[in-house]
């Protein structure tokens, strides 16, 4: 019933199957070894002292040692240095985890009670199975339909919460072919422990073949879905060129610097576009004050929203 192959969970930790897995494992080994040394020092130390200086008689005299500043300094400074080393080391790996290459394969992931849905740019949808090519950077754009979930692939050493009404991102590059277990790591109710999925890592050819199978939303890519919605519902006020209409034109919008009438400026990303569709009044582009756009909250489903975002990305 479970997708995982037993070998992945039976060893001490699942075998690494992503690029930063090895860096993770080195840091992990360093931490385990330094922890062991610390435990031996402390636990061994007090057991040794306790036995060596056990009470011989009720009239034992003990040494009167109140403090030693050099010792205090030493055993604060050495742990401090170690902590700083692992902090910096962790930071480097974390930074690696949080940077997404330009050419990454983007997959929209949506958690809901209690399964994972994967939507590809081609419009292909998949439930409980995500197929990705090996050695290709992948960026997951994660959201949730209902409550918090957390997308967790132990073999890749990655995890990211899925939050309703917001996108979060997670990146990895799979280095091994095979099936890898996906868990939901954020408690989400009765079937939390059954909210499983798998990542199937295959060769590029197999991936493309898989992508062509089935009926990918009547043959439309996500961007095409977005284009269709745009031509029906947005063109009244927005151009696909950089010409302004009632609202701004959208050519070159993606990843551009936006300045707003009241809010602080930002670079247009998924969250910004989503917000502008669902809550247009939140950030009004400078120069468009007083032109009210109605909210599309409840009128567009997640796939359509993702479609619009993907379509806007194509308007370069």
């Amino acid at each position, binding site marked *: 019933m479970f997708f995982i192959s037993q070998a992945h969970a039976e060893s001490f930790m699942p075998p690494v199957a992503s690029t930063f897995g090895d860096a993770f494992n080195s840091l992990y080994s360093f931490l385990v070894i330094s922890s062991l040394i610390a435990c031996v020092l402390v636990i061994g130390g007090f057991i040794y002292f306790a036995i060596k*200086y056990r009470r011989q008689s009720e009239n*034992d005299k003990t040494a009167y040692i109140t*403090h030693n500043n050099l010792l205090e300094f030493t055993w604060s400074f050495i742990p401090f240095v170690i902590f700083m080393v692992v902090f910096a080391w962790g930071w480097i790996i974390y930074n690696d985890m949080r940077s997404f290459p330009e050419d990454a394969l983007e997959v929209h992931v949506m958690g809901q009670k209690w399964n994972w849905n994967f939507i590809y740019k081609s419009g292909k949808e998949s439930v409980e199975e995500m197929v990705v090519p090996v050695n290709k950077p992948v960026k997951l754009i994660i959201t949730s339909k209902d409550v918090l979930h957390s997308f967790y692939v132990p073999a890749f050493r990655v995890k990211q919460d899925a939050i309703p009404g917001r996108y979060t991102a997670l990146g990895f590059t799979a280095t091994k072919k095979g099936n890898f277990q996906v868990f939901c790591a954020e408690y989400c109710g009765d079937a939390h422990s059954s909210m499983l999925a798998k990542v199937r890592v295959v060769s590029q050819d197999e991936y493309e073949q898989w992508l062509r199978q089935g009926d990918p939303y009547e043959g439309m890519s996500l961007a095409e879905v977005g284009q269709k919605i745009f031509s029906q519902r947005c063109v009244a006020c927005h151009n696909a060129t950089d010409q302004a209409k009632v609202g701004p034109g959208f050519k070159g919008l993606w990843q551009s610097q936006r300045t707003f009438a009241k809010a602080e400026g930002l670079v247009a990303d998924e969250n910004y576009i989503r917000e502008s569709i669902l809550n247009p009044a939140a950030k009004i582009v400078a120069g468009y004050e007083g032109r009210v756009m109605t909210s599309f909250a409840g009128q567009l489903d997640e796939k359509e929203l993702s479609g619009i975002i993907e379509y806007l990305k194509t308007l370069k």
Partner: protein
Amino acid sequence: MSATTTHDSSKNYINHESGILSWLTTLDHKRIGLLYMWTVLTFFAIGGFYAMLIRTELFTAGKTIVDAGTYNQFMTFHGAIMVFMVIIPGVPAFLGNFVLPLQLGAKDVAFPRVNLLSWYCLIVGAAIALCSLFYNGADTGWTFYTPYSIDTDNGTVWLVLGAFVMGFSSILTGLNFIATVHKLRAPGMTFFRMPLFVWGLYSTAVLQVLATPVLGITLLLLAAERILGIGIFDPDLGGDPVLFQHFFWFYSHPAVYIMILPAMGIVSELITAFSRKTIFGYKAIAFSSIGIAAVSFFVWGHHMFVSGQSEVAGIVFSFITMLVGVPTAIKTFNWVATMFQGSVRFDAPLLFAMGFLFLFTIGGVTGIFLAVTAMDVHFHDTYFVVAHFHYVMVGGTLMAIMGGLYYWFPKMFGRMVSDFWARITFLLIFIGFNVTFFPQFILGAMGMPRRYYDYLPAYESLNKISTIGAWTIGTGFLIALGVIIYAMKKGEKASDNPWGAKTLEWQTSSPPPHENFINDPVVTAGPYEYR
């Protein structure tokens, strides 16, 4: 020991008044301490029972005894009871209430009525929380994460309001202790002559006063969210569910130190008393308590590395969390150094203190794993976290509570606990604990997420071991309960200072008179003058 010779030794705080009403209206900190003891023990039994049910359910993959919904209730009530009703009031309100004024040479805490009120807050809060059982219980986990806690259809709001009221209990205790430490020290008791348990309680009290109100307003907002649909945490109404996590951990991370700091204080007392040697690095230990308390306000985001908070926030919180590690390490090394050239007697309380050192060290170093951003991405919300905080909270705090209970028992009841049986309970709890929770580190590393009702077959053998360990701990605590009740009734009469300790509480009779000391103590030296 000199003060006790002149007064009628048959009169003490226990027989000062009689009747159940005299207990329910008492303003004596020692009696309120005992009220807390019975309350906390009762809740501990309930929370422990839930723990046994959880582990029994996890004995096999799939359904063992109950369905998933019931299991989620077990894990919610286990967490909420153990956190809000056992560990938070456990050390300060129970042991602290009894010992703090005695160690300061005061007749009582600064505000005895407020002290009694705080006990009633705990009782009323607990009653409200348990009302949720009549409304299909609660299944949110003790963390009440939104939006799940808004959507789920049951008595969660009762549990939330109960925790809100219990928060007042904690605030009032903390407020009382700060005022007591500042205003009621005996003549000559300077800040640096205070026992380290007092330092631990003092830093805890600061946390209780400053952090708990934020939990209060958070829980109030969550209750309003459920009753009035205010939408502040509800994404459907424009709210921000992650904001709840920020608010919640702004309290609940300091709360972790509310649980551990006074336990560290107990360990400082036990190690000096049973090594019969002055503490090594008194000021380092005292200041590290304050340091931990201060820094603990700025680390809450390390619970949220994968919650969608910004990368920069993750890095900053990781860095500050590392800084908490330093004072913790200082304490640990100072305790070990205190035993050097001491005269160590292995009574049960010291065994528990050594158990604390053993388990807390493991809990501490695994905490560093979780503080490293990249590591936490893998370990977050897995059994690794479960194992880590049980090593700290149970292996640390509960060990210290047991040690402290055995240590101060003669002072509380004027009778000794059977040392043999106390050691038996130690062995069962200590061994059972490691058998239960060490495998969970491995389970977590293997990737098993927490709050799982069901698990992959590959995880089954370690879960079986863990469950057997849990039954061993349960047996240990049951025996401990028997040992304590037996000792209360039939234990050997205790002398005023059975352990030969130096702090003030041992200079009065066992049990102490109503006003603690016959002659008001005057302090002329530090707390641990073993020369």
